[in-house]
């Protein structure tokens, strides 16, 4: 083995999966966590990281990050985006299947994993398409996709209009106990929309996407999950009513999970004012009330996880009238400080870390997101006091499409360890 033996010395170890929060050393060998506290007999570190005054956490796991490649390399590549992820403390990124070609057959999975391997930064966890070409018609070979390395199935932002196909897809995925990550949005109600249907869109004359597009889809998915027993995870909730619908279903005992994109916790439809295309996202940014309900949902556990919903693009793609611009925010660079920032909303530090590590690992049933001995050595060392200003130049992602330029951030990854290697 050429993997180094590493000690991370003197940091505050936060491992929400095990309730650990103490200052201790962490020892790594053979790509795995070896021990916490005193070094085991005979262990000598090849490298020691002084982690004084830092947080030592499981590396972040991002449930939704577009990488551009394959198919949209003008937006980003697996190399550029996994490097940006590693730099930002994100050690695993789930890549939705709306690539070109679509992740609907094992060879595409293989291609992505090979590229990720040679890039040598964050792990890429591909999400397989539920239907061929994301056309919503024929089921993919889900079992084969999982064997090749997918961690879950998804339909990206593409609709499955025929509910019978959706039902079969859920039953089939349920056969193999495969998690399904679905972004709930009724395709008909959302048709042509580019912003939250509300006062701001009305004033700007932008075609709206009503909250009902989300809630109608959630209600349908919940019923189908109850009916099929599928492992349903709702990806990127946006609305107060959506959170409430999920809350009720969970109160009834349905084992569904949900996440929210980090940007929906900081931005609202007001930010779209002046036709700010940097705040053009899908699903759309909603109102302040919705933003507050999402935070409430995190606090009471209705929302299990937070993803970046990273969606980089070339700068030209934002230079057009609002509707015509690429929807999405380049979010990997700002995920970690915005996550830590949630402490201001009354969410404690351990929970902030859990939301993007242990929780997504649990949703995906992967052996990550913890610092327990034997787990994969995916670790982020965070300097929680580091202040920095967001700018295009500060960003490691190929996409500099951020609405946070000029914002002061606090907290940054000082070191990432991925599969036992320092990045």
């Amino acid at each position: 083995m050429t993997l180094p033996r590493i000690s991370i010395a003197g940091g505050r170890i936060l491992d929400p999966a095990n309730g650990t929060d103490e200052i201790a050393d962490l020892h790594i060998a053979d790509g795995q966590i070896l021990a916490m506290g005193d070094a085991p007999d005979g262990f000598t570190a090849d490298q020691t990281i002084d982690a004084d005054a830092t947080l030592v956490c499981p590396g972040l796991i991002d449930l939704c990050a577009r990488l551009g490649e394959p198919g949209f390399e003008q937006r980003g590549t697996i190399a550029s985006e996994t490097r940006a992820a590693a730099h930002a403390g994100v050690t695993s990124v789930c890549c939705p299947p709306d690539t070109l070609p679509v992740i609907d057959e094992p060879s595409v999975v293989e291609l992505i994993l090979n590229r990720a391997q040679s890039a040598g930064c964050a792990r890429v966890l591909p999400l397989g398409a539920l239907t061929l070409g994301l056309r919503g018609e024929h089921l993919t070979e889900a079992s084969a996709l999982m064997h090749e390395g997918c961690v879950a199935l998804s339909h990206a932002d593409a609709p499955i209009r025929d509910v019978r196909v959706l039902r079969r897809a859920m039953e089939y995925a349920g056969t193999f106990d495969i998690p399904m990550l679905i972004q709930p949005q009724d395709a008909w109600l959302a048709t042509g929309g580019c912003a939250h249907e509300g006062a701001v869109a009305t004033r700007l004359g932008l075609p709206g996407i009503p909250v009902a597009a989300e809630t109608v889809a959630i209600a349908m998915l919940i019923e189908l999950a109850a009916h099929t027993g599928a492992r349903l995870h709702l990806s990127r909730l946006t609305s107060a009513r959506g959170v409430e619908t999920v809350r009720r279903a969970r109160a009834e005992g349905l084992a569904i999970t949900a996440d929210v994109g980090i940007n929906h916790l900081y931005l609202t439809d007001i930010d779209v004012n002046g036709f700010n295309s940097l705040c053009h996202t899908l699903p759309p940014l909603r109102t302040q009330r919705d933003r507050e309900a999402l935070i409430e949902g995190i606090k009471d556990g209705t929302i299990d996880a937070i993803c970046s919903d990273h969606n980089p693009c070339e700068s030209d793609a934002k230079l057009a009238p609002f509707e015509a611009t690429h929807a999405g925010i380049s979010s990997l660079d700002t995920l970690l400080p915005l996550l830590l920032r949630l402490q201001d909303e009354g969410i404690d530090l351990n929970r902030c870390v859990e939301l993007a590590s242990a929780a997504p690992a649990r949703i995906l049933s992967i052996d990550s997101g913890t610092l327990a001995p034997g787990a994969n050595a995916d670790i982020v060392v965070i300097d929680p006091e580091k202040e920095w200003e967001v700018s295009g130049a500060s960003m490691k992602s190929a996409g500099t499409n951020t609405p946070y330029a000029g914002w002061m951030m606090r907290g940054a990854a000082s070191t990432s360890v991925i599969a036992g290697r320092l990045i």
Partner: protein
Amino acid sequence: MRGNDINRPSAGPTAHNIQLTDEGKLRHFLTVEGLKKATLTEILDTAENFAGVDERDLRKVPLLRGKTVANLFFENSTRTRTTFELAAKRLSADVLNINIATSATAKGESLLDTLHNLQAMHCDMFVVRHAQSGAAHFIARHVEPHVSIVNAGDGQHAHPTQAMLDMFTIRREKCNNGVGFHDLRFAIVGDLLHSRVFRSQIHALNTLGAGEVRVIGPKTLLPIDVEQLGVRVHTNLDQGLKDVDVVIMMRLQRERMQGGFLPSAGEYFTEYGLTPERLKLAHPEAIVMHPGPTNRGVEIEASVADGAQSVILQQVTYGIAVRMAVMSMALGGAGSGGAGSGGTGASA
């Protein structure tokens, strides 16, 4: 050590201030929203002067001699383009008509490319019509500092010159003998969801202090949260028309029936068509307006459109004076402080 807050930068150029020079003069005319009452009044007063030009034998003034105005129409329009062209010519400007709906963008050229190419022709003003909301703002953010943009309609967002010519018409026809906007009740009827004219009218009416603004239409054609724009919502035409002084009818596009917004033109006319009987519910001296072209028998009966209370043709005439006013004000303001708001691409 800095405080705990994420510091948001001061809000970049907003929809409102991008159209003003550092001195607060009109540089672009993109939307009525955010402009002061004094600015709107200045437009109306200036238009009043130009309305006289129209009535003289020599119909030209040399205000924009040597300036070039380019009509950039990404969406087809004969009427609006013609009035802009006439307005520019009466100000002695050179006019270029560029119908982009059928040329450059069909070849895959981006809006920004088109813009840069046209800018190289050293135009002083672009009059822009585009099918997407925010297109005029986008162009205004990316033109060189010496170029002014006049929005001739962007998507469903704004059509500010139409709204101002409507205000001009209202002022001329209704505001006499001490009567002002605050003494008048207004009803805007029809397809408001898809109407950029309506959105501009609302801001103009509210800024000028309209007494009461009602909007009337079926729920499928009323924008969500429209009451937040400062209007009262009615779905019943008879109730909404009661005692109003100004009735503004909106055009109903035929394609709304295909879009599932309405069952038929016939049922629409039955419920929302303006007939002589219905007009009697309004104030006896109420005026009837329409941005044109009218769909007779769909939203308005011919006898109303051509009747004594109709000012629809006056609107067309006044349109030239109002556009002359906006053009001369924007080009007068552009030279002085334009550079100050040139570097406004930050939020794009």
